[in-house]
């Protein structure tokens, strides 16, 4: 699929390799529309990037996929089943097949790093302690933090917390990993490590990844498929190279980080000069 101003997927043919299929989703919060006909298809084994300016509903999309929110209209299918039609127990069963990395890590602050990573294992399995220990240390080693197992979350830097959260997200060997703004506020070393880890998880473990972010350059290096959201729907999709070559004004503005373009930088406001001179108040 190439980038265009109206690339909404028209086909409704069954997509066998689609792990997540978002079809014509409409969603509003307090009457403010977030999505108006959103279509996204995440294929098994690929890294799918969802990009867009702040406030375009990228995190909301992840909450729709995990069944924490439900679409007002349209359908979100996960592993081939409409998440909104599932009973609570089935939604929980679906979530066990997913992992999610939160923007701030969202580690449980009253238990240490080891216990944070062990948390899902203890909750969902009856594995013996020795096996849990091996499993947790293996995952911590993968993110380079085996030595930090005894630290409390408050003792970790932002980058370390996110790596621990990543270890926790993969400890149950999920089929799908959701990343919510994984690159925000990271130093170059941590950023490089997280990028490599996302790629490694995908290549070594075959985990399908959905990365929600607005860091275009970083995503371009790892994503197989990209969607650019704006105004409640997908304005462009394709490989990062497709997006880079797109002649769409919206895509160009987003990829180059320009303040001028179809996506307004300024929140709607009265005339600047009039407001400064107090004309409105009069």
């Amino acid at each position, binding site marked *: 699929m190439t980038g265009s101003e109206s690339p909404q997927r028209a086909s409704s043919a069954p997509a066998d390799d689609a792990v997540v299929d978002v079809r014509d989703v409409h969603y509003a919060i307090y009457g403010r529309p977030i999505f108006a006909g959103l279509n996204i298809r995440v294929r098994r084994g690929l890294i799918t990037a969802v990009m867009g300016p702040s406030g375009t509903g990228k995190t909301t999309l992840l909450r729709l996929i995990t069944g*924490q929110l439900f679409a007002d209209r349209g359908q979100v299918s996960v592993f081939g089943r409409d998440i909104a039609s599932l009973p609570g127990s089935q939604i*929980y069963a679906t979530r066990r097949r*997913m992992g*999610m990395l939160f923007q701030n890590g*969202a580690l449980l602050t009253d238990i240490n790093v080891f216990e944070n990573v062990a948390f*899902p294992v203890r*909750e969902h399995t009856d594995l013996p302690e020795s096996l849990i220990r091996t499993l947790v240390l293996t995952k911590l080693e993968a993110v380079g933090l085996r030595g930090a197992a005894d630290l409390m979350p408050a003792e970790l830097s932002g980058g370390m917390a996110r790596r621990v959260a990543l270890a926790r997200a993969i400890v149950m060997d999920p089929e799908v990993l959701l990343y919510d703004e994984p690159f925000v506020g990271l130093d170059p070393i941590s950023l490089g490590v997280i990028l490599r880890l996302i790629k490694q998880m995908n290549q070594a473990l075959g985990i399908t990844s959905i990365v929600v972010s607005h860091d275009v350059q970083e995503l371009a290096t790892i994503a197989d498929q990209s969607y650019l959201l704006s105004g409640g729907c997908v304005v462009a999709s394709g490989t990062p190279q497709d997006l880079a070559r797109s002649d769409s004004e919206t895509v160009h503005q987003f990829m180059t980080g320009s303040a001028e373009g179809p996506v307004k930088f300024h929140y709607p406001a009265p005339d600047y000069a009039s407001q400064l001179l107090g004309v409105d108040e009069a």
Partner: protein
Amino acid sequence: MSTRVVRSGYLLEGVRRFGLTGIFFARLLAACVRSLARPRLIVAQIFNAGARSLIIIMLSGLFTGMVLGLLGQDVLQRFGAETALGEVAALALLKELGPVLTALLFAGRAGTALTSEIGLMRATDQLTAMEVMAVDPMSYVAAPRFLGGLIAMPLLVAIFNVIGLYGAQLIGVGLLGIDRGTFWSQMQSAVSMRDVTEGIVKSVVFGAVVSLIAVNEGYQAEPTAEGVGLATTRTVVASSVLTLLLDYVLTAVFL
């Protein structure tokens, strides 16, 4: 905006909050059954809500008992009945002061801690993370804290009462010279099982109410610094007012 519209706005908001708390309570009860499978979490919360409130409860109990000793002796001697100090102190503590003061202190110490802890867990996405990990935060976070508070409160009231009686005896017997035997025998003969039951029922009801309000406010708090602060304030205000209101109702029931 007219006064009537403002009033109906407050009324609607009050009804909405009452309804939300009712729904939350029903969900919480269901989660309590599930959380019984995690006794370790409940014990941890009994420690957090109970053991960590011990110092303030013991100190308050001691001084309350000492004041009872002083005032009781002063009032009773006007009627030549100062030997009844043990009886007065025991009834005042068991039936009224023990449960009510402990509940008010519990709301200020443990209730606020519960609300702010759960509110901050929401603000930092910890509850959302649990949901995504297919762990129900109602069973893992809310229910153990509610049960911990519910169990801790009667224990704290019992400790408050014991220390309070010791404080009353310290002043009445040690300072004002009432006979020790009279002090305790008067108490033994005057206090009935019904009085003890009244205190226990009050402590359980207050424990349930304060814990429910604290957990509910934390759970429903706006995930912002201001939201958590407001929720904490609401916990103290609502817990205190409801404790005193229910105290009147329960006292009337037991009369």
